[in-house]
């Protein structure tokens, strides 16, 4: 465990070397959120609530869900793992005294933490400016939501690493990452689960969307302890399931690893 904390510390040190590049992403984030707010304002012009959400809640839902997406958009889990497998640099990683997957996730988590905190601050500022503070949010509910958001970021990274591991078999795992991110965008960010027909909504509750997007954002908007427990248990189960899948895929991938001669 100590060495993984050191990996996180080193990644943190490495990531702050190019933190300035984050500012460009902030601009993109602010523009995206402004467009979405205009769109939702237009949709809401004839009603005050849609499927239980006021405009303010809807905008905060978008902001919170987007914070997880933008905040967890680290290349470590996607490009780095993919390139590492494709270029053969994985040779250097798998003969080190750590587990490559835990190493990658530790790196991802440290790298993404900086992004996540930065985007959380920007989101809060945007939310306060555009629609004001979230109603009924207390300090306890806010603090309770922090581990839920961090677990959401972790699960997002694990899913991305899992997708990147397909590089052992396919030429490019990027299209799969695209499909996943679009899936999250449409079903997890742009519309909360309540906006979909009941059947689709019920299916979505059993997908990672519930753990990585809908659950954390909804919890912050309407916190209650049973919902909190429900989400954290779902997240833990999701982590266990994804860990098992990653382990199987990784073991199989390493066995068929074909590092070109040098």
């Amino acid at each position, binding site marked *: 465990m*100590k*060495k993984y904390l*050191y*990996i996180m510390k*080193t990644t943190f*040190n*490495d990531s702050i*070397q*190019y933190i300035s590049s984050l500012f460009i992403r902030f601009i993109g984030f602010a523009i995206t959120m402004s467009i979405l707010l205009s769109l939702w304002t237009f949709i809401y012009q004839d009603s005050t609530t849609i499927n239980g959400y006021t405009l303010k809640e809807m905008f905060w839902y978008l902001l919170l869900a987007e914070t997880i997406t933008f905040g967890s958009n680290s290349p470590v889990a996607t490009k780095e793992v993919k390139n590492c497998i494709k*270029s*053969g*640099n*994985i*040779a*250097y990683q*798998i*003969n*080190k*005294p*750590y*587990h490559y997957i835990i190493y990658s996730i530790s790196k991802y988590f440290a790298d993404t933490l900086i992004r996540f905190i930065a985007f959380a601050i920007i989101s809060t500022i945007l939310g306060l400016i555009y629609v004001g503070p979230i109603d009924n949010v207390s300090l306890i509910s806010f603090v309770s939501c922090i581990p839920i958001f961090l677990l959401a970021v972790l699960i997002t990274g694990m899913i991305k690493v899992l997708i990147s591991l397909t590089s052992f078999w396919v030429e490019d795992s990027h299209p799969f990452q695209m499909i996943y991110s679009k899936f999250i965008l449409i079903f997890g960010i742009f519309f909360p689960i309540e906006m979909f027909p009941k059947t689709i909504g019920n299916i979505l509750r059993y997908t990672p969307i519930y753990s990585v997007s809908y659950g954390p954002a909804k919890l912050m908007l309407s916190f209650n302890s049973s919902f909190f427990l429900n989400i954290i248990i779902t997240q833990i189960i999701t982590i266990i399931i994804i860990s098992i899948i990653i382990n199987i895929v990784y073991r199989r991938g*390493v*066995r068929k*690893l*074909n*590092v070109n*001669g*040098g």
Partner: protein
Amino acid sequence: MKAIEVKNLSKTFKTKVKETGLKGSLKAIIKPKYNTKKAVNNISFSIEKGEIIAFIGPNGAGKSTTIKMLTGILFPTKGEINIMGINPQHNRKKLAYKIGTVFGQKEQLWIHLTPYDNFKFFGAIYDVPEQIINKRIAEYKEIFELDEFINTPVRSLSLGQRMICEIVASLIHEPSILFLDEPTIGLDPVIKEKIRVFIKRLNKEKKTTIFLTSHDVGDIEKLCKRVIIVNNGKIVLDDSMENLKYHYLNKKIVEAKMNTKINLTDVEGISIIKDKDYNLKLEVDLTKKNISDAIKLLNPDNIIDINISNIPLETIISSIYKGTKS
């Protein structure tokens, strides 16, 4: 004590084959065809603790594939590997503490960080206590004169400086065996020499077993006492450097600058390699003729300048490669 033991090791790769053109590309998607290639074909050898061996061969001979199997990166198709009592494929993590690897064409350093931060990182992941890491960094700093660049981000270092840092990073946990895969590739002679001197010192002082693959004959000649030559996945020679030279250096090159032009033809044991104006280059087979015979043939009174040398090791090695080419 044996550091490395390899028995009947084989590795077969499956590679996709594609016909030319668009039609070929489409065909490859619908009905892919594969070729199997035996990169390593039933090789066996063992290396004693503290040996420096050169594991050489032409491109595609199976050197890197073998190193990657020895270091636990690739799974063999067949055969057994034993590295200091550890099976690399079953106990990769345990093996990692015992070995160090430097792949000349791959990077392991964090490029945005300084060499110092990198060394600290590698020390930490190998569970080396802080005090010892600092001591080793100080030691290597002195040996390699790292002062100048130890606090410069790796991305700003020259190739030679990077390679030195790669070697230091792989030694921070003091491995018993060091695998070097073309460590001097692309480096200038000064850095090459520095690395060679250090490897020798490491082997002498810490009894580190060195397993080296290199295309640089200088590395092999100056460092190794034993050579294993592989070609087409098979071992074609496993001998001491001394024996290699003894058996293959039974020829000498005589280069002479003549006062007047003479016309020579090949005689048994002496062949003319070059005859241009007043310059002659002869190859003397010492099993058949002596150097004095060659000098007599040239006529000593007619010689202005003469140089007698061994056949370069590079020529010997390439003749072994060619001789074993299937």
